[in-house]
C-alpha cells in the first residue's frame, strides 16, 4: 500500500548516504539524542523510559521468587521480554510476539546475560529451593528505527534502579525492599546498518527500510564484547564487521555516561 511512498523515501536516503549524508544531518557514525526518564512505574522494582530520537521504549523490572533449574540449583536467572506495541507503528499487529519481537528480546537478553553484570549466584535465596528471577520487560511505544539499542539502553537503565523486594515466608512483602540489586557492568548494544554499501550507525525507520543488513555488537566496557547479532538478508565483509565493532566501543562509551 504505502510501498510507493516508502520507495520515494528510501531512494532519497540512498542517494544522500552515497554522498555520506543523512536526512537529519547526522554523520554516518553519529547517534540521535538520548533522553532517559527514571522510575516511570512505582509498581516496578526498577523502571525507565528511553527516547532515542523518536524511538521510545518503556522498561520495567519485577523480581519474583521461583525455583532454580535443577542444573544450577544455586543460581537465579533473568528473563527479557520485548513488545513492539501496535501504538508504535501502524505496521505492528496486536497478538503474540512475532519473530521480530522475539529476536529483539533474545538479543537484549544475551547482551545482559553474557556480560555477567547480574551475578546469578547472588540471586540464590536457598540453594535448590528458592531463587530470584529478574523479569525485565520492555515495550517499544514509538518506533523510529534501532529498537535494539533503545531497548538495550532502557533495559539497562531500569536494571540499574532495581530494589530487591523483602521476603517473608518466601513471599514478597509489598512495598518493602532490602537494598539495591548489584549491577557490576554496563552492557549495551550498538547497531550499524549497511545502506548502499555504507555503514550507518543508529538507523532511523526510513534508513532501516533502505538497509541491506544490520549488525549489533554488545560491549561490556571499552575492551570486552558480549554479543553479536547480524540481521536481514544482506552481508558484511569481515573488514566491515571490524569497523562496526570499533564504532560499538566508541558509541557505547558515550551512552554509558547517560545510563
Amino acid at each position: 500500500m504505502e510501498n510507493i511512498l516508502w520507495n520515494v523515501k528510501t531512494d532519497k536516503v540512498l542517494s544522500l548516504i552515497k554522498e555520506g549524508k543523512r536526512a537529519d544531518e547526522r554523520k554516518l557514525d553519529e547517534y540521535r539524542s538520548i533522553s532517559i526518564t527514571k522510575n516511570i512505574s512505582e509498581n516496578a522494582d526498577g523502571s525507565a523510559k528511553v527516547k532515542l530520537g523518536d524511538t521510545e521504549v518503556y522498561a520495567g523490572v519485577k523480581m519474583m521468587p521461583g525455583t532454580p533449574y535443577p542444573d544450577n540449583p544455586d543460581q537465579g536467572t533473568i528473563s527479557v521480554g520485548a513488545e513492539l506495541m501496535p501504538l508504535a507503528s501502524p505496521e505492528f499487529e496486536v497478538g503474540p510476539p512475532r519473530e521480530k519481537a522475539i529476536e529483539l528480546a533474545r538479543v537484549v537478553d544475551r547482551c545482559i546475560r553474557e556480560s555477567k553484570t547480574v551475578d546469578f549466584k547472588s540471586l540464590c535465596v536457598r540453594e535448590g529451593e528458592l531463587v530470584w528471577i529478574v523479569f525485565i520487560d520492555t515495550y517499544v511505544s514509538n518506533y523510529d528505527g534501532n529498537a535494539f539499542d533503545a531497548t538495550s539502553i532502557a533495559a539497562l537503565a531500569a536494571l540499574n534502579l532495581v530494589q530487591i523486594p523483602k521476603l517473608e515466608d518466601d513471599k514478597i512483602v509489598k512495598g518493602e525492599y532490602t537494598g539495591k540489586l548489584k549491577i557490576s557492568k554496563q552492557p549495551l548494544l550498538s547497531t550499524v546498518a549497511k545502506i548502499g554499501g555504507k555503514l550507518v550507525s543508529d538507523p532511523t525507520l526510513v534508513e532501516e527500510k533502505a538497509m541491506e543488513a544490520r549488525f549489533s555488537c554488545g560491549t561490556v566496557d571499552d575492551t570486552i564484547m558480549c554479543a553479536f547479532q547480524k540481521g536481514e538478508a544482506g552481508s558484511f565483509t569481515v573488514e566491515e564487521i571490524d569497523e562496526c565493532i570499533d564504532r560499538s566501543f566508541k558509541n557505547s562509551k558515550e551512552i554509558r555516561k547517560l545510563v
Partner: protein
Amino acid sequence: MAKKNEKIEYVKNGKRVDGRKVDELRPIKMEVGVLPNADGSAYLEWGQNKVLVGVHGPKEALPKHKQNPYKGLVRFVYRMATFSVPDRKNPRPGRREVEISKVSGEALEKAIFLENFPNCAIDVYLEIFDSNAGSRAAGITAASLAIADAGIPMKDLVCAVGVGKAGGEIILDLNKTEEDAPDAVDIPIAIMPRTKEITLLQMDGLFTKAEWKKASKLAFEGCDQLKKMQEEALRKKFDTAEKKK
C-alpha cells in the same frame, strides 16, 4: 494494601486516607500528541496510574468481512504492562483485559461521528504502565483525548471516573486502599458531559439505590472537572502547534 480485617476510618474529619475530600479527584496530568507515529495519542497520569494511548485511523477495516457499510468500528485494546501491578502480570492478555477492552470501546462509540466512516476502523491501543485503582476510567479519559487529537470528529469528549463506597462513605475516585475496604463498592462510569449520557457503567460490591443516587451525583461532578482538564490539554497542544508555525 490494607489488611482486610484492620479497622480503618476511611473518612475522618472530612479527609480520606490520602488526605482528599470525599468529592476530590487524585492529582491528574494529561498530555496530548505524545507519539509521533500514531494519528492521535495521549499520556495521562492519574494518581499512581500511568496510561499511554495511541489511535490509528480511521482506516479501512480489515478483514473485509468485519466491515460495517453504515458506520465505522472502534477497536479498543486495553493492556497492562507486566510491571504495572503489585504481582508481575502474565504478558498474555487475560479475560479481565478482554472485557475492559470491550466495554471501553463501547463507551467511546457514541461520542464519535462513526456514520462518517463506513467500512472503516478506528484502532485505539492503550497500555497501563503503572496502576493503583481506576485504570479503566483513566484509560477511557485518555483514549477520548487521543481520538480528539487524531482529528476524528466527536459529539463530545468522554470522561470516566470511579465512584463508590468505602467504610460506609460514598466517595469519588477510589484509590487502592479504599477499593480494598471490606465493604468496598467500585463503580466505573463514563459520561458524555454535555448531554449527561452514561456510556459505561459497571459495579462490584453491595449497594443500595439510595447510595447509587448519591454516587451518581458525585460521578457527574467529577466528570465536569475532568472535561475541563481534557479541554485544557487539547488547547495546550493546539497552542504549542501554533507556536511552532
